[in-house]
């Protein structure tokens, strides 16, 4: 009787979006959840002294209206920031997976998932940003799954479909959906969209099993990626973060060999390769995470950032980088060290 409550046993809904069609759609999927009206999502999400990791065991869903900051510019910790046309959205805050290295646990006060249902406002903001993008010769690079895993939440929120439908009519956009999911249904239902690129984050199996709790196995992700490629979707991969795990030479060497054998390389548009790095502020909070060795490595703290020492970073990345060149040309590999 007193076991952990199921995920989304409680759904908090801002009064402003109680009658929103997307709210009704989401609530239909959870007929047994307790619906709790709230004034503002910060009533739940922004409370002080929440226990992130206890909440993670039984996360709740918060449905809200995004009033401001519909688009964000890139920063030094994000990939894609080298393009002047890069921006990202945070239409959903927090992720269903529980990766030990994830910055979200240092960024947000709580582990509940907040979904802003007014996607249309973000669509409009993106269209405006696209019309005024700094480099009109290149598309607006819009990442929509940074502070979450949108495709992993597709069965719960259904936002992925709406983004794909919108992206179909946006010729000057490159919408990037980053995921660790093993999603098949959405891909089976939807024809490929030229302006959308699916970016799978892949990790060696021992890393995925130990440090990416709740996320699909490496094989499941590769299978989903291949399915997407077969159907003609644009794809890329992220080998990020590369971690200093015990036996990392062997672990990452076997991993890249596996990728060499199994990925549909001609269709892989680019590879993002980076080491663990984090803002010091987020890292400080993350270190309270119980039961992980990953965050207690003797990292280097410099310029408000936490990462491995420069020699370690070079060592970690260079081996993978060299091996990857057997499968993909150097200019398609973006390094983050």
């Amino acid at each position, binding site marked *: *009787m*007193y*076991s*952990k*409550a199921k995920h989304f*046993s*409680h759904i*908090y809904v801002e009064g402003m979006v109680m009658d929103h069609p997307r709210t009704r759609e989401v609530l239909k999927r959870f007929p047994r959840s*307790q619906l*709790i*009206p*709230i*004034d503002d999502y910060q*009533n*739940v999400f922004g*409370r*002080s*002294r*929440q*226990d992130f990791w*206890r*909440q993670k*065991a*039984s996360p*709740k869903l918060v449905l809200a209206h995004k009033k401001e900051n519909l688009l964000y510019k890139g920063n030094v910790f994000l990939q894609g920031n080298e393009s002047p046309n890069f921006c990202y959205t945070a239409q959903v805050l927090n992720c269903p997976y529980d990766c030990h290295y994830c910055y979200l646990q240092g960024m947000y006060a709580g582990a509940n998932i907040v979904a802003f249902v007014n996607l249309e406002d973000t669509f409009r903001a993106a269209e405006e940003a696209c019309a005024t993008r700094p480099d009109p010769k290149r598309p607006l690079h819009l990442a929509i799954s940074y502070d979450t895993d949108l495709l992993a939440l597709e069965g719960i929120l259904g936002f992925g479909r709406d983004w794909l439908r919108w992206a179909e009519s946006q010729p000057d956009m490159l919408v990037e959906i980053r995921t660790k999911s093993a999603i098949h249904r959405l891909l089976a239902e939807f024809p490929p969209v030229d302006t959308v690129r699916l970016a799978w984050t892949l990790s060696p199996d021992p890393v995925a099993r130990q440090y990416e709790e709740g996320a699909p196995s490496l094989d499941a992700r590769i299978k989903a990626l291949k399915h997407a490629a077969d159907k003609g979707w644009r794809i890329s991969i992220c080998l990020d973060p590369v971690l200093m795990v015990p036996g990392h030479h062997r672990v990452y060497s076997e991993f890249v060999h596996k990728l060499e054998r199994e990925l549909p390389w001609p269709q892989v548009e680019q590879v993002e390769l980076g080491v663990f790095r984090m803002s010091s502020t987020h890292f400080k909070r993350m*270190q309270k995470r119980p*039961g*992980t*060795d990953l*965050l*207690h*490595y*003797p990292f280097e703290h410099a310029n408000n950032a936490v990462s491995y020492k420069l020699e370690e970073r070079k060592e970690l990345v260079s081996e993978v980088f060299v091996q990857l060149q057997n499968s993909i040309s150097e200019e398609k590999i973006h390094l983050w060290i």
Partner: protein
Amino acid sequence: MLLVTVALMIEARPLCAQLGLKAVSGHSYPVFQNGKTILVVSGTGALNASASAGWALGRFPEISMALNIGFAGASETVASMHEWRYIHSIRDEASGHMGIPDILWNHPFKESALLTVGKVLREDIGWKGLVDMEGSGFYQAARRSLAPDRIALLKWISDYLTGEIDVKITERKYANAIAEIGDFLNHLEEEASTCAVEEAQSPYFEMIQQRLRLSQTQLLFIEKWLAGYIARGGDWQLVEDLLPEEPPKHKSGNARIFEQLKNVLKG
């Protein structure tokens, strides 16, 4: 330790019987205690509830969970007479402030919102939840010390917002109702004990504290490094080898061992 707060003695007596709590004299409030639970009778009103919860949390730092339990009113259309309701949100009528405890565990009760008012209601005001006079005060005070998943409010419908109750019948029915939730109360007691153990400092830290004379700042660093060392599976023997049987008499001796510990713990 579990803190239980109630407004009235009539609400406290059956709880004392159920949990085996004994009166403890010499406190600012009526207090009843066993090894796992401390019960405080606050008096009516949000101000009293807030003051008593704040007092208890300050006076007994070992409290790791808090429960406010007791009577509430509700419209007949919202809840049945003498029914328990677990509170999922609390609205303070005076300030409009909303409090939300986290409910991370399954429980056997229906859930409701709670409105905390400043005076006894004698008519239905159209609120689709329960009404009491203490909930918001208790919650706000408890939140100053506890995470939202460590706070619970459990209310028992004593009237249909008429403002009147038959004391004898209510007392008897409430005592029966408390007996029926014995399992739930025991679960909370256990949960409070478990999280107290989780939050206790490690025995290693205790040992370092006893065998070295360190400043508060140095201790904070040791605690942080030690957590990482343990998480990385560090060898405790290496640390123990550095510790003297007794704290060095001179500051320089302590500082030297602190630096050695730092090198080992930080890796």
